[in-house]
């Protein structure tokens, strides 16, 4: 495996990349632990597994830091630039940490025709956050889903931590958020790794 470029680059990047303070830094040993499941036999398989591995890291930590991206790049014998290019292209990845609670707000067509635009507006007006943002107090991160969450009979819907809320209005959305914040849980409660117990070799 080719070593990745590190050194001055990573110092500069952690500053520009922000967020890598002690509180939410990603434990790179844990990343290596995740990566140890992603074994590959040849070049092709290594390339094919990069995205899956990043998904696993993203699911586990809620985001992928540049440090973590470098570890992933090293594991697959590629460059951090390439990995960062993937992180910024694919919508599911975050390059900043999640807040304490994490909401997927569906903006598929079912939700649009049933009024999800008002919900997005409400998040901006009441909570001051747009797609991808975290509230200033770090309590809530919202991600607007451009695809479809597939619960269209209950549109508009959102998934907040582990729970789904359907037939939403701005009022019920705000209630759900307040409930989650008061409830004390976090998005980690909803952490069901996609590939748990499965064979990563395929």
């Amino acid at each position, binding site marked *: 495996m080719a070593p990745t470029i590190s050194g001055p680059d990573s110092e500069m990047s952690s500053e520009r990349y922000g967020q890598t303070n002690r509180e939410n830094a990603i434990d790179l040993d844990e990343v290596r632990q995740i990566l140890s499941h992603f074994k590959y036999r040849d070049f092709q398989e290594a390339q094919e*597994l990069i995205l899956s591995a990043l998904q696993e890291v993203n699911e586990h930590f809620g985001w992928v830091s540049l440090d973590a991206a470098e570890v992933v790049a090293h594991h697959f014998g590629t460059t951090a630039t390439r990995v960062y290019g993937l992180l910024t*292209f694919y919508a599911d990845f975050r390059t900043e940490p999640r807040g304490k609670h994490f909401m997927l707000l569906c903006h598929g067509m079912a939700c649009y025709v049933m009024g999800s635009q008002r919900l997005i507006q409400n998040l901006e007006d009441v909570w001051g956050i747009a797609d991808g943002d975290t509230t200033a107090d770090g309590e809530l991160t919202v991600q607007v889903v451009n695809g479809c969450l597939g619960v269209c*009979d209950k549109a508009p819907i959102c998934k907040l931590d582990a729970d789904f809320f359907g037939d939403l209005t701005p009022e019920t959305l705000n209630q759900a958020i307040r409930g989650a914040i008061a409830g004390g849980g976090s998005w980690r409660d909803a952490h069901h790794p996609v590939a748990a117990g499965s064979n990563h070799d395929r």
Partner: protein
Amino acid sequence: MTDRLGTRADFERFQQTARHRWEALWQGDKLIVSVGVDSSSEPKGASRVLAACREALRGTSAVVREVSGNGAMWMEPTVEIKRPGEPPVVYGWIEPEDVPALLAGDLQERAVGVRGPEAFRGIPPLDKHPFFKHQVRIVMEDFGVIEPDSIEDAIARGAYSALSKVLFEMTPEEAIAEVTASGLRGRGGAGFPAGIKWESGRKARARPKFVAVNSHEGEPNVYKDRRIHEGDPHKILEGMLIASVVCGAERAYNYIGGEYPLAIKRFRRAVADAERLGLIGKNILGSGQDVEVRVRTGGGAYICGEGSALMYSVMGVRGQPRTKPPRSVEEGLWKRPTVLNNTETFANVPAIISKGGEWFSQIGTATSAGTKMMTVQGPLKHVGLVETPMGISMRTLIDEVWGGMRDGHQFRGVQTGGVSAGPLTPEHLDYAVDFDSMTELGGMLGSGGFVVFDQHVCPVDFARYLTAFNRVESCSKCVPCHRGNPALVEILDRIRLGGGGRDDLSLMERTSKHIIDLSLCGLGQVAPMPLLGMMKMYPQDFLDHIERHVCAAGACPIATPEALATAAD
């Protein structure tokens, strides 16, 4: 744990055993409780219903099964109960706390139908329900019937017998001839004949060759492919294996959207089980054929549903399309010939091989054979996933299958073809739903997701939503799409805010033409279609915004000149 099935005879013995076990279960004297758990019922508490059933029946001889939903989403969570000597009855709207009463037989008012031909104690057969009456299920045949995590269930219901037929009774040419004769066309939207594609795949001379399944399903309007993975994953797997065998591919990929954890989990389970039985891998059932199956997951980029973008994504780079030719069947994954089809296309193949292309071609219309899985969104009474013959009228679908509009909602139109085509209005509802009929109106079957909208949705705002989707999801590789769609959104915003002029309409038409003519990939080339469709079907709404500064639906922020000045900044 069963050992690897080394020969066809081993497979047939296994199949016999599975069938006996299946019949013994359903003809036996045990209580059978089947809970439908999938991505649409799960958010409504289906797993908790399942857990409640298991808890209530612990220590009894009852069999509690985890099946998938039957597509009738509006009545989820559903539970099917079969008591000894009685037919299975499906109950809807079951909450976890309802389970004791349900098992005690006290919830007869929630009985929706009998799974079987005859009524039972006043409960009609499920197939008589308007939602199910018009359906013909090939892909969805066993949804809610088998346990998707049980390969024994699937094999008892016939899975992998078509694979065995292809391996031992047919030449690849004969198998492809059946697919060609069936008239099966690609279910992802383009409608390219599958048989012709497979033929090109077989004839391609470069080695190795690959088969790839497009299960990305990144559209905002459809949720069918993930449900095949959740309901009957072995149908997809068998279709992939058949395609690999007849095209001479040594590896088959399934690219699943990363947002669908249950679909991924159940499909991976299916692959692991099939591998264990020797239905995947080296020397399948002793035939000398090798096929490796790999599951790859996407990262939430709509563009990765485009063929070449999907392959780049599988290869671990940004999913950006390339110019064609060469087509993927000549040069696809790892620059090798790759036969790529939609999930639903592959899932139709086992039935075509088993029952013949002729049988399949009799279903549907002359140019669009077979059935189509269709999903609906919007304020309808019976929102759900259906599989009907091609050619059914839009009116039948909306008024009968999907139960008509909910109270207080007036039908305004139905958006077809996702973000790649235009809407149909009330006067067009008698058009047939198939690959060809709707195109003259600017509509499209697409992947089968229809979005019904009511008087609260403004066509200008909807056009903005659809164009904005294409703007956000543009991969940014080519300029016409990358710059053109934001330009369209900007003009639409001007109109929505009441600042539009008459020349904006022709400007949008010209800009659209540039995007259509000059974009690199198929998705870019259709990106302006929803806008053009909305302008064609609802010209008055656009004029009202421009000339009278009125939004009849009340959806647009029609505003004062001061607000406009701010918005322009």
